[in-house]
């Protein structure tokens, strides 16, 4: 079997950032060392006025709270020589602390640091999966619906998408199973690797982006690296569908074709359609109502493009009379028609077409 790519260039960032901590920490150590050592070497007096130097421990204790700007009080009444030394130590020590803390906070706030930490968390969450899970690639509307469905059925899954905003949507959805999500270039195999392609419990990959090329790339990667996995892909065109089957997809879903198929089924065999949509619906759903008498008459398909083409082909194949109109060329005449498919690319236009029918 081919090794699953698991390179993580992002963790290099952690080391580079840690490196940036060296200088401020060394400076702080140096300042405190000199301040403490000097403090322990300067002659002082105790409460009774007897000569007494501070021990190393007392000096360090004093310098710790003084340089950190806490500043309780003097351990003994200090001599002028000690006070001069303390003053210099405060100027140096406070600067040293400010430099060290400032660097630390800038590292924590660094975007590449946050990304690296987030990726580590994602990979850890994926590695912790202890039951079969799916990889959902693409978290658009389709991916979101599938994720909700998987969640409701109790199936575990991880989510990857090309945009970080969509992964934020996943987090905001607050699904019960708390699926891990990460964004990156979906064409790179390592992203699939992080999402759990090499995991022994990985049960399948579902490619649901709206880009046929990316879906094909995902399924190729999954099929080549883990031929034993189930791969389900979404596609928009007939040619992409054939290509995907050649590359080893277990099932390819063309939503446009599915819609046409179900439409024809609903027209010609209303009872079969009623039964199948009831079987496909979620557990506990009511039986959907039956609609009959839609098969006799003219059907109008308003729209151009892949979707209108598929639906028209399906309806024609079913022996129906179909009129195709381009909604851009004005309002279609729907008087006398029994049905209208509003299939333009714009949802607003579709809504206005449907409301006028």
């Amino acid at each position, binding site marked *: 079997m081919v090794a699953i790519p698991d390179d993580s260039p992002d963790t290099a960032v952690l080391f580079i950032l840690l490196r940036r901590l060296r200088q401020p920490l*060394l400076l702080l150590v140096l300042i405190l*060392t000199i301040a403490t050592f000097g403090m322990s070497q300067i002659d002082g007096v105790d409460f009774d006025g007897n000569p007494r130097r501070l021990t*190393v421990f007392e000096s360090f204790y004093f310098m710790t709270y003084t340089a950190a700007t806490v500043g309780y009080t003097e351990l003994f009444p200090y001599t002028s020589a000690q006070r001069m030394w303390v003053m210099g130590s405060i100027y140096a020590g406070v600067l040293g602390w400010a430099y060290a803390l400032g660097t630390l906070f800038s590292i924590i706030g660094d975007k590449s640091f946050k990304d690296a930490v987030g990726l580590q968390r994602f990979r850890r969450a994926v590695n912790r999966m202890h039951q079969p899970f799916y990889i959902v690639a693409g978290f658009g509307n389709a991916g979101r619906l599938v994720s909700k469905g998987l969640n409701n059925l109790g199936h575990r899954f991880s989510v990857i998408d090309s945009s970080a905003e969509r992964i934020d949507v996943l987090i905001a959805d607050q699904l019960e199973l708390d699926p891990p999500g990460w964004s990156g270039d979906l064409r790179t195999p390592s992203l699939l690797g992080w999402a759990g392609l090499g995991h022994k419990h990985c049960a399948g990959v579902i490619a649901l982006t709206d880009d046929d090329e990316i879906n094909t790339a995902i399924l190729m990667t999954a099929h080549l690296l883990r031929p034993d996995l189930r791969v389900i892909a979404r596609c928009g065109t007939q040619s992409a569908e054939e290509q995907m089957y050649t590359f080893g997809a277990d099932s390819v879903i063309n939503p446009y074709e599915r819609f046409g198929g179900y439409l024809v089924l609903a027209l010609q065999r209303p009872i079969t359609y009623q039964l199948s949509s009831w079987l496909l619906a979620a557990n506990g759903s009511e039986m959907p109502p039956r609609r009959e008498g839609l098969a006799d008459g003219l059907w109008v398909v308003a729209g151009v493009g892949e979707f209108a083409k598929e639906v028209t082909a399906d309806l024609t194949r079913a022996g129906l009379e179909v009129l195709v109109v381009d909604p851009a060329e004005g309002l279609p005449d729907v008087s006398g028609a029994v049905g209208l498919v509003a299939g333009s690319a714009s949802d607003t236009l579709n809504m206005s077409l449907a409301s006028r029918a």
Partner: protein
Amino acid sequence: MVPSVNFEKVVFGFFVLLAATLNFGYFYGDIRDPEVHSVFELYLAVVVNIVATILKFGDRTQMGAIYLATSLVASLQLIAAAGVHVYASEVSTMGMDAHAISSVVSLCGGALLANIVSVVLLVIETSSFRHR
């Protein structure tokens, strides 16, 4: 032609050796006699070991990771030794007796072992370096 030297490695080598020498200097002498173990040497050994640890922050190499581990062990041992020293001299009613100083010195002995490992690693790394 003289090959150029990585300045970072020079600094690190310096601190690793200094950590080991200071550590040895404090460790050397009768284990029950506080007179022969200078507290300032212990103090400097702690500081130099911490510096050597910080110098290995963010080193991704295998060697760097082992250096970090050995330095960390040495630092922790020395900090423990310093803690015992402070407890004996400032808190305990017994003062710095033979038992206390021998605890401190034996903790330093453990740190010395870790520091020796660091020095051995340094020698191995240097001798395995090939001039191109």
